[in-house]
């Protein structure tokens, strides 16, 4: 089953207090290679099939519902096919095992 993934980020020009807090936390952990962290949102929408109409719908939802266009940007909308989703799931379980 394919998944449509929408990613939303705070606008680049605006302060991201969450990201700032994590940036400082990393510095305290000694990970000073991180000069900036920004935190956004990821929506995974499982669908039976992907059509142009559905994608157009998701695009509209991304603009109107998933994001607040005053302070956020929709940075990507993409489709993950079964295999990719499985790979992603495996990758995360491997990460969890570590």
């Amino acid at each position, binding site marked *: 089953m394919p998944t449509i993934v929408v*990613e939303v980020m*705070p*606008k*680049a*020009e*605006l*302060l*991201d*207090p969450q990201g*700032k*807090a994590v940036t*400082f936390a990393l510095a305290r952990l000694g990970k000073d290679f991180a000069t900036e962290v920004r935190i956004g949102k990821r929506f995974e929408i499982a669908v039976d099939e992907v059509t142009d109409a559905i994608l157009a719908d998701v695009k509209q939802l991304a603009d109107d519902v998933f994001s*607040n266009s*005053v*302070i956020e*940007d*929709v*940075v*990507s909308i*993409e489709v993950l096919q079964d295999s990719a989703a499985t790979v992603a799931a495996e990758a995360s379980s491997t990460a969890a095992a570590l």
Partner: protein
Amino acid sequence: MTTELTQAPGSAGSERHIPDTVSNAAATPDREQPYGALGLKEDEYLKIREILGRRPTSGELAMYSVMWSEHCSYKSSKIYLRQFGEKVSPAMKKNLMVGMGENAGVVDIGNGWAVTFKGESHNHPSYIEPFQGAATGVGGIVRDIISMGARPVAVMDQLRFGAIDAPDTQRVVDGVVSGISFYANCLGLPNIGGETVFDAVYQGNPLVNVTSVGVLRHEDLHLANAKGAGNKVVLFGARTGGDGIGGASILASDTFSAGGPTKRPSVQVGDPFAEKVLIECCLELFRDELVEGIQDLGAAGISCATSELASNGDGGMFIELEKVLLRDPTLTAEEILMSESQERMMAVVRPDKLDAFLAVVAKWEVETSVLGEVTDTGRLIINWHGEEIVNVEPRTVAVDGPVYERPVAYPSWLDELQADTARSLDRPETGDELREQFLALLGSPNLADKSWITNQYDTYVLGNTALSFPDDGGMIRVDEESGLGFAIATDANGRYCQLDPAQGARLALAEAYRNVAATGATPVAVTDCLNFGSPENPEVMWQFSKTVEALSDACLEMEIPVTGGNVSFYNQTGTAPIHPTPVIGVLGVIDDVAKRIPSGWQDEGDNIYLLGTTSLELDGSAWAGTIHDHLGGRPPAVNLEAERQLAGLLAAGGSESLLGSAHDLSEGGLGQALAESVLRFGVGARVWLDEVMERDGVDAATALFSESTGRVLVSVPREDDVKFRGLCEGRGYPVARIGVTDKQNPGLEVQDLFTVDLNELQQTHRQTLPARFGALIAE
């Protein structure tokens, strides 16, 4: 994996924006400048050229355009606001430590303590982005309080939304309320009151006003100015980013390569935790005497802070703008000058104290950069990588901006509106009709319980809250030893002001004053937040002029100084201006908060008295609006001398502990005050109206719903009855016993007319907001 759909402007870094220098400006006098898009009129632009003797650089244009905006320069209101400074008696100055014109006024409350307070508006940002708009509104006013050297101790908010059932109202209400609660709760500041009004006139232009109060010892008072050549100018707090500079991008647009910059956002995002750290950091800097002055950065950011500090000090300042720490390295010099990034402060520090200053700031993990120093050149000079991009006389930016005497015109529609009185409306006569309308008012959006909103706020944090919503005013203990404290209440009735702006202003002052008095405190000072339509509309300007004239006269008559405030113009839904909404805040002092007077009944068998008299004054009332959807006629009369007498009576009654409760009568009249007195603690009452009806010559509907002023409902324990009556007689204030509290039957019985039990009162009062906005948080 993902592709970026948007890209930060200039992030490639290949082409750095080259700013317009002073010498370049002198060499290219004819270059066209986008002053119109920055909100400057042609004559204003020409005036700038005349002041400078050349065309402004783009950086100077950025500074002048924001500082000469209505919001920063008060150019339409200045000629009227002077009256607050002129109409002052010696008695008004007695307790005033800092008056108008500073970040916030400061009032001596005794025992070496002082209180500073101010109201501000954040209306337009709160419509565009309700959550962040309201949140940063709280942040901004709190920084004003900090910059006076005070510790912020409370906030309150005055909210006006569109009709409760309009489609967009919930979006705005949800965002604004959670924005306020998020920011103030994170800061650990109690929200101790305020107002919420729903009216279609605010549909496309909600009003979000915030008042903050701070406390300080007399010796901690600080004023923001840049004195002493050689002193360092330091920017500290959050980094500067592209917040709130929608317009500034125009300045840079012609210097970017293909595509141009994305339009910068016009909103700001706040970080209350950064502000909390800033509060503590600033208070430590003041305590250790490491700063000469601190100025907060709000609207117009660095443009405002540098020009105001320099104007208030020795008149000169030199700044190296590239030393500003940036969150976004692509910002141009013009954008840095205009950025409204939150949680920033500017300090003036003596060179010998700089190391100690930096050590304190570092301890709080606040980022800092020394931008430049105070000079005695009389010029504000700003360099960008060694090149001079601003060279101006600071007063021309910050103080001597344009002043307009806008045309005023008596509103063409006003006579007709005033002629359409509520006298022709059908008034209820039978007990059943009265009961039905009493409940309709109790459950109407503006008179219904606001717990849905106030439950989202912290009320008792810091542990000094003596009174808070739904009492008449908020009260905070200042001195934990003596119990010394202050009370504050705010009020405005836009419907009254629409009918008669001068009278509306007097009524708002009288009610806020009475609310403070009803807590047992003595009113001592006023702040205002004047929300109006467009000053370019002569009818709006007439409303404004009448408001300020009446308010300043009324303050003089009541001997209570206006210590500061805010004007917000251009509030309109479509082309229709909002009702004039001058929010008046009154601050009072109480020697011991243990003697505060609660607003509801608590004991069995207390006598209930109505202080003041009732006339047929239903024009503009909640009754006319709710029952008949009517607005017309003339607002109620107000007798300021009587209000002073009443306040004196309540203070005396409070200090002798004669009063079990006191509750002011305002919107909804006696009926609403009775219901709220029952609902506060669930103690009922038997009430009779015949005495009042006979004495004042009014019918039952008038007795219950009229909004005559100078009235307060008090309850008096039986053992204090003789003393209380003596007090009223001695002071010659009209009083009538209208009932007795009843714990056994916790409802409201209005004899010979109707009875409503407690459950029905609660249901009616409490369900209105949750029915619209969702379940109540924490019953």
